[in-house]
Every structure is written in C-alpha cells, then in structure tokens.
C-alpha cells in the first residue's frame, strides 16, 4: 500500500503542470475554440517527448506507465489544455501493441487517435481528436483498422469545443481481426477511460480552486460570500469527491499497469475490486460525476459572472460534461459495469 506519487511522478507532475499552465492554460483553451486544439502548443509539447512517453523506451518512447500518464492527464485537465495528449498516448500504445507505431506518431509530428465507437457504414462517429488526427485506429466489424490520411481540421460544433469529428474507417489498414481485435480495442478504450477520468479529476480540482478563490474575494452584505454557510456547504462536499475520483482513477491505472497483487477480482460482496476493466469504467463514471458537480457548484458560486463568457469557470463547466459524455450515457456505462460485477444479464440493454 502506497498512495503517494513516486519521486519521478512528482517530477512529471511538476513539469507538466508548469508546461500546461504556461503554454496551454485556460486562455489558450479559450483562444483555441471552437476547434479545441492549439497547434503551436502541441508542437512545443513535441519537444518534451510527451507524445511518445507512454511507449517503451525500446520503441523510442519514454517508458511511462499508465499511472504516470494519469498524472499527466490530471494536470492536462486542471489546465483544460487544448492538446490531444490522451487520445494520442492511447492510440500510440495500441499501435505499438498490435504491431508497430509509426515514427511520426512516436514523435508526435503526426497525431493518432482512437475511435471509441465501432464504425457504422464505414464511418466512426464523434471520434475524439478526430478533427486533427492523421491516424485513426478503430473497430470496423470484427477488424481493428488504422485509417491514415489528412485530418479534416474542423470539429463538429459541440458543447465542450472538443476536436470531435466523424472519420471514415473503410479502406483502412487491418491491424487485427476477430477476438484479438476486440480485446485490443477494449484495452485501449479502458486506457482512454482511465486517462479521461484523470483529466476530469483535474477539471474538478481547478473548478474547486476557482470557486474557493472567488468566494474569498467576492463581497456581498459587507462580507466575503465564502463566509455564508450555504456557499461553504456547496463547496465543502467537493474535496472528498475530487480526492475519491483521483484515487479511483489511480487505482484503475494501477490495475491497468498490472502490478503485483493484481488478480482481476470483482468481489461485490466484499467490496474488493481489482479488475482493470471494471475500475476503468468506475473511474470514468465517478470522475465525470465529480467534475460535473464541482463545475456546477463552482459556477453557481460565481453568481451571474459564472454564466458570462468572460469567466473561466464556464470553460471548465462545458468540458466537464463534454469529456465525460464523449463515450456515451453514464447509465449505460453503469450497466456495463454491472455486467462485470454480476453475471451478465440476458436482458441487459
């Protein structure tokens, strides 16, 4: 049992916190709307080796674990950095696992992403980072394919100004077929869930900080609004939610890294869960809820200014929802988790 970051992870955290705040913080996120990607910031990120950090050193990567990547993801979320780091990291690992990751993807000069939904009629809908990725890995029937080509460069207009786009997966290179294809995609999707959960933790963290800072400064009735108990209590529930989400995302990453003691248990009766797929789903659902609650309450504490475009909290509010819902309805995700925890239901929708 060790709930601390390692010294290396603390270093990673510090480096990325500084980078995202300075080079890709909320101002850049605002400026990057509606596409949701700041090209120059991504190019500077390349210089740090970040795009390939989740690949083994033997493949030219940084040898980072999923736990390390989750640390980066939280900092990315905390700054709502408009760079497709999570999608790229997940896709690069998938490409490496299924054969070889192109050098341009290792280095990040070409962006890769994961299509979350299987293609229908040859098209995968609402691909995250699909607006900017040259490489899209995804499922087309029982095949895992890689579609490479120019990125559309425009996003579907959306709530969180995420770089979402529909991408064709027909005429693509076949990476794997059959159960292997489904297993590899499922693994990548669980990594995406875990890292997106990490990013949502970061969103929640900054939303809380914004709310607390505002509540200390803003005066009404001759006092800081943070001295009103109704305001205090809106905020006081949040540290536990955010810390809980952080721990659950970290536990999912730990399970995904397959460290010692991992035995893939789903013991509902004893509240003993170490199965990666279950934990990844749990982390995404819970972090999505924590980030939604944190941004909701923080926005409310800002009064009318929270609704104004000028204030940053609305940027966090919209991304908290958009990042959490890109995969779909959390209730459906919960039913999938129930299938892992219980016997799968014949009637499951």
């Amino acid at each position: 049992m060790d709930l601390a970051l390692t010294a290396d992870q603390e270093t990673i955290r510090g480096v990325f916190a500084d980078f995202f705040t300075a080079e890709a913080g909320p101002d850049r996120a605002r400026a990057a709307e509606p596409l949701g990607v700041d090209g120059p910031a991504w190019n500077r990120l390349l210089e740090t080796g970040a795009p390939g950090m989740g690949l083994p050193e033997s493949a030219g990567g940084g040898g980072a674990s999923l736990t390390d990547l989750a640390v980066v993801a939280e900092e990315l979320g905390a700054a709502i950095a408009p760079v497709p780091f999570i999608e790229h990291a997940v896709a690069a690992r998938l490409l490496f696992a299924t054969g070889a990751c192109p050098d341009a993807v290792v280095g990040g000069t070409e962006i890769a992403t994961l299509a979350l939904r299987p293609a229908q009629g040859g098209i995968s809908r609402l691909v995250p980072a699909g607006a900017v990725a040259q490489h899209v890995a995804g499922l087309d029937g029982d095949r895992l394919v890689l579609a490479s080509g120019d990125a559309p460069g425009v996003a579907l207009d959306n709530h969180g100004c995420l770089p979402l786009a529909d991408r064709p997966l027909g005429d693509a290179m076949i990476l794997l077929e059959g159960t292997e294809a489904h297993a590899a995609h499922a693994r990548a999707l669980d990594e995406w869930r875990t890292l997106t959960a990490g990013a949502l933790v970061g969103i929640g963290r900054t939303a809380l900080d914004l709310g607390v800072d505002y509540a200390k400064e803003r005066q009404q009735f001759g006092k800081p609004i943070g001295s009103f108990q109704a305001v205090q209590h809106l905020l006081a529930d949040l540290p536990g939610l955010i810390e809980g989400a952080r721990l659950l995302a970290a536990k999912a990453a730990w399970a995904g890294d397959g460290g010692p003691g991992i035995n893939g248990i789903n013991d509902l009766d004893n509240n003993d869960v170490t199965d990666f797929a279950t934990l990844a789903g749990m982390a995404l659902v819970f972090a999505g809820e924590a980030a939604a609650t944190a941004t909701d309450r923080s926005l409310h504490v800002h009064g009318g200014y929270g609704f104004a475009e000028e204030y940053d909290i609305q940027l966090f509010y919209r991304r908290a929802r958009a990042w959490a819902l890109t995969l779909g309805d959390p209730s459906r995700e919960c039913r999938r988790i129930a299938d892992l925890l219980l016997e799968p239901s014949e009637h499951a929708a």
Partner: protein
Amino acid sequence: MDFSLSPRAAEFRSEVRAFLDANLTEEVVATMHRTGTFNDKDFNAALAEAGLLAGAVPGYGDRDPIELYILFNELEKAGAPYDGLAVTMLVAGVINAVGTDFHRKQVLDRLLTGRFNCCLGYSEPDHGSDVAAIATRAVRDGDQWVIDGQKMWTTMAHESDWAILLTRTDPDVPKHKGLTMFLVPMDSPGIEVQPVPTMATERTNATFYDGVRIGDEWRLGDVNGGWSVMGVALAFERGVMGGTNPAVPLLRHVRNWAADAPSPDGGQMIDDPLLRERIARTAIANQVGQLLTLRAAWIAATGGLPGLEGSMAKLYATDRYQQAVGWFQQMAGAEGLLGFDTAGAAADGWIDYDARHSPVTTIYGGTTEINRNNVAERHLGLPRAR
C-alpha cells in the same frame, strides 16, 4: 502508487475473515438486532483471544492504522455487532494517548480482554453539535470530584464499565476552556441509565449523574483541558473505525434478493436495467468510500496527521448510503416495507432495516453540517461563518 495490501496486512485480513466465518453466526446477528445492543462481549472476547483485538486500539501495540482500518472495515462489511467495540477501542486509544498508569492498569488492560466496555458521554439533551457548551458540572471536593448533570445518547452505557464524561469545571471562562474529561466507573452511586429506543433496531440511553463522587485519579487529562482530550477522541472517531462502508452489506442483501425476486415486468429483478445501474453506482460509491478511508489510514500509517480526510470519507459515504437505500427501497416496492421475520419481506427485511438505520448516519459522530463546516473552514480556508 500501490493499492495492494502488504503481505502482513493481507495476512491480518485473512485472519479477520476467518474469525468472522467462524464466530459471526446468524445467532450473533439476530441477537444484536433483537436486543438493540450492537455489542457482544463473547464475540469481543473471542476476538481478543484470537489476538485480533490489540490491533483495534488506535495508536497502540504493533498494529498500524491500515490494520486498524482492515479490522473495522471487515466487521462493518460483515454486518457484525461492532458499535460497542469501536467506542470501547476508541476510549482505549484515548487512554493510551493521554492516560496515566492507573488508567492503563485499571481500564486499558481490561478493555483489551473484550469483556469490558466503555461509552462516550459527550452529548446532552440541550447540547449536541455545540458540544463545547455542555452543562454537566464537576466540582472539586478535596481529592474528589462531584458530578451532577445529564447526558443524552450515551450509547452502550448499559453495557459499559466506564464512561468518558465531558464535564464543565469552570463556568466562568470561554466554553472550550472550562471543560474536563473524566473516566467514570459506571457502578458509582448516583448514576442512572435509562434506555432510549430508536426507530431502527439499535437502542441508546439517557444517563443521569446525581452527586456522583469519584477520585481525582479518574481525571483524564488536565483540569480544564477536556477540549484537547476531545480532540484526540474525535480524531480517532472521524477516522478509520467503521462507518464509511455501510452500503456494502446493503448491496450484498439487495443482490441476493434480486437474484430470486420476480420482477413485475416478468423475469427476475436482477435483470432489471435500472436496478443493475443502481447496483453499479452503489458499487462505485463503495469503492470510493473505501479508498477515502484507506487514504486517512495511510496518512496516519506513514506518520502524517490525518486532518479532515476521515470527515470527508464519512460525509461522502453516508450521503451515498442514504441515496442507495432510497433507490433500493423504492425498487423493492411494498415487499421492501416488510421487516425482519416477516414472510415475504424483500431481502429478509434488510431493506426496511437500512431505511430505518440510514438517517442516523448523517447525525451521529458529527452531523453532515458540522463536518461540512469543518471542511469549509479548516480545509478550504473559507472565513468562519459563525
């Protein structure tokens, strides 16, 4: 990060689980709910004999806080009678931290046998959340103190050999500065214990102190230093001694019920999509409750001072427990209203039980509002509201 238990902690958990398999009989569980006394001296003594009880005292012996967490978490998940044990061991921890040799010999050593109990005498009829305002007086008379007053909600007083009693020893100074804590032998003349039944199965008590005389050797901590002793006790209570996984047994009961219960729509309830969603959401909340509690334990185990981590775990877990109870009570329909021992009761009456019990979890051990005040002021640094 590493979420696995150390080999030693894993071994300890296996021992606790084996103990529960052997000793937590249906009879023990039925008795606790029938009598309302969530304390079983034979069960506690068996724990002591199995060598598992010294690990239950916070800060004592060679067990670390992770193992303390494991013991109480396993007891809570199994639905064992542990309320009396938790309070007793909490007092043992307080004695270990601030007590004298006399207290250790007279009280602590006995508590470790499992045959003796302590209760907490803080709350009064007119002073609950504002506990520093209590009015029960202790007046010095030579080497003795004379205690007069009334306590409310003195749970386990009827089982207890001692109470830790928060008293006012100086009414002329600010309220926190005039308090003194005593260990009071419950067989002292002048003490009366009256049962207070509750809407759930558990009972509690009102206790009355009429000219109760005890020697100064029973004082715990300094004269007028009672508030700092409270601080030690509250730090233990709002930590890792149970109360943050109440929905684990609930979920077990619901799952067992749903496996057999017919759905009004045909098929079994376990195939109902909404029920499955809610089972998953409750399982998520149970994981989070566990992780927040583990974090408090881990901070303590690594030499840190858990501040409000325990409060956050309690705030979160009790809120979600109540939400889950509401969901499952609705989904069990009218059969969910039926109690223990009633034919046809959903989940053998456990849903009715949890719906009765859950309201108290956001009240006792510090209400949700008091915990939120503490998090707001001491964790978030917001200006004081009062």
